[in-house]
């Protein structure tokens, strides 16, 4: 049995956003939908200001509220503890979105990739239309359609169903890392099996104090954050009265 988890090393993370766009690229996400996202905060007053960046994604909770609440089991726990989705059963009630504490589920409110279906040309006969580009190069709906993500899940989810991160199950089952993990230039995302005591993730959660988002809800998320985004050392002092 494996228990897949991700460790996010906030010290190494530079807040570049590469994970966000790489995931959009890999999974053919439609306009306005992100599976990998971020929470940013600016705290303090000039010049004592801190800006911090926390990458977020589906936590693949062990006690996933989205799974327990889904009336048709369209959301289910797969092997490795991944929280997966079957668009074939999804009725689009969005109950999972209400139940998810992390805001990581998105809904297809319209036909995906509306911008790529347009047929207007900016310069008549000089440039082309988005739909024409896709047709010209043979991409499904979008010219840079990635067919590998359709191995086991809808390559592009249809209108009327939800969607979310699945830890790139199509890659993991082929012993490749989730794409956001590969794409991170800073090695700030580490993926692996918590059931394997020698895995990097196991070692990291043992070595460093970690936190998970909204742990008090008992969801047992599997995304662990270690260390801190901003270092800022200071000299020791006791202050004064």
């Amino acid at each position, binding site marked *: 049995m494996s228990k897949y988890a991700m460790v996010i090393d906030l010290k190494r993370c530079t807040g570049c956003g590469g994970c966000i766009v790489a995931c959009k690229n890999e999974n053919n996400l439609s306009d306005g939908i*992100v599976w990998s*996202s*971020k*929470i*940013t905060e600016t705290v303090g007053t000039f010049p004592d200001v801190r800006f911090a960046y926390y990458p*977020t994604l589906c936590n693949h909770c062990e006690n996933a*509220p989205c799974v*327990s*609440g*889904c*009336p*048709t*089991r*369209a959301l289910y726990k797969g092997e490795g503890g991944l929280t997966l989705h079957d668009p*074939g*059963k*999804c*009725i*689009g*009630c*969005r*109950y999972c*979105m*209400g*139940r*998810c*504490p*992390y*805001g*990581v*589920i*998105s*809904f*297809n*409110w*319209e*036909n995906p990739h509306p911008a790529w279906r347009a047929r207007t040309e900016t310069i008549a006969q000089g440039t082309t239309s988005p739909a024409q580009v896709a047709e010209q190069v043979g991409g499904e709906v979008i010219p840079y359609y990635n067919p590998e993500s359709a191995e086991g899940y809808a390559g592009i989810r*249809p*209108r*009327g*169903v*939800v969607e979310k991160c699945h830890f790139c199950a199509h890659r993991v089952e082929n012993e490749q890392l989730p794409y956001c993990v590969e794409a991170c230039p800073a090695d700030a995302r580490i993926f692996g099996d918590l059931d394997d005591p020698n895995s990097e993730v196991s070692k990291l959660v043992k070595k460093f104090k970690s936190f998970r*988002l*909204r742990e008090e*809800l*008992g969801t047992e998320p599997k995304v662990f954050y270690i260390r801190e985004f901003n270092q800022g050392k200071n000299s020791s002092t006791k202050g004064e009265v």
Partner: protein
Amino acid sequence: MSVKNNISTKYFVWIAVLAIAILAGLFTTYKVLTNGLGLYSANDVIVWTLPLASYAFFSLMSAGLAMVASIPIVFGIDRYLPLVKRAVVLSLAALVAALLSTFLELGTPWHIVAYFISPNPRSSLWWLGVLYLLQFVFLVTFFVKSTNGKYNKVISLIVFLLAIAIASTLGSTFGFVEARSVYYGPFIPVYFLLTAFLTGLAVFMLTTLIFYQITKADFVEEVKTLYDELGKAFSIILGLSLIFFVWMTVTGLYAYSPEYNSIKHVFGSLPYQFALWLGLVVPLTMMIIPVIRQSRWGKVVSTALVVLGTLTISNIIIELGMTVPPGPRITQFPELAAPSYTVWEWLVFVFALAVALLIYTLGERYFELEGSAE
């Protein structure tokens, strides 16, 4: 007091109005099924808007009417038996309206068959589906039997229990959501149960009184007393509802934490103030003043206000849990703005309402719903 022979132009006009609304609704259905739910004002943060509130509204109404229909038989209160037939039809009509609203609220409604082939008993939403199906079957059975003058105690008990289950399970779909502190807890299931009964009573009285008005029926003394009694029961339930609503508000306003405190964003809004004053306080006041309670207009106005109040309150409660976007969604919707519903959403509600009214009208027209004590 049959109205079979009392066909008037008013009736045709009424049917025509409903037909137009239903046609608009069918067009809306077509639009929604081909374009998707993006036609509504909802988004990934404010996930449910008017269509869901409409569904909750009609669902609670149906449950409450089912209680009105079944209580006289279950508890053996014979003087209320004349109410049963109409209440059953109204309950069915409201249930159909609820299911219709749901259909247009789901992104992929034709996957509903997955309820049967891939059930999830851990989900209160799944249970709701089962309960609606059962309620529909039992209500129809109840109705058929009632038109034959037979009131089956077992069936009405089942209907009664189903009604309680539906109202509180609907509440539990919110009450089991630990992620949103405004939803979580036993409050909404209990409050919905109370609201269901309140709305059921209100709709029943409202409809009957309007029906009497239209058919210019005599408001004989025994009927007057019966309805005054109903009015008293109604006031008690209304009073309880007001207390619940006030405490819900106060506990929210009292809190420091932004999530629990989210009611402060809706507190000053027109819908909230309407719900509190016109939806609860004014009707209650009217109902506890005997002379107003006993008057027909008093009952009509206060029940109408309560019905509107329920729709508004359903809306508010659903919205409350979504005002603090979770996690990364905070950047998508940092400004807390009340959604302004699109015309398609209003049409969904109107469609459901028109269908419900049509069912009731046809029921009133072709079956003797004005029962007598047996």
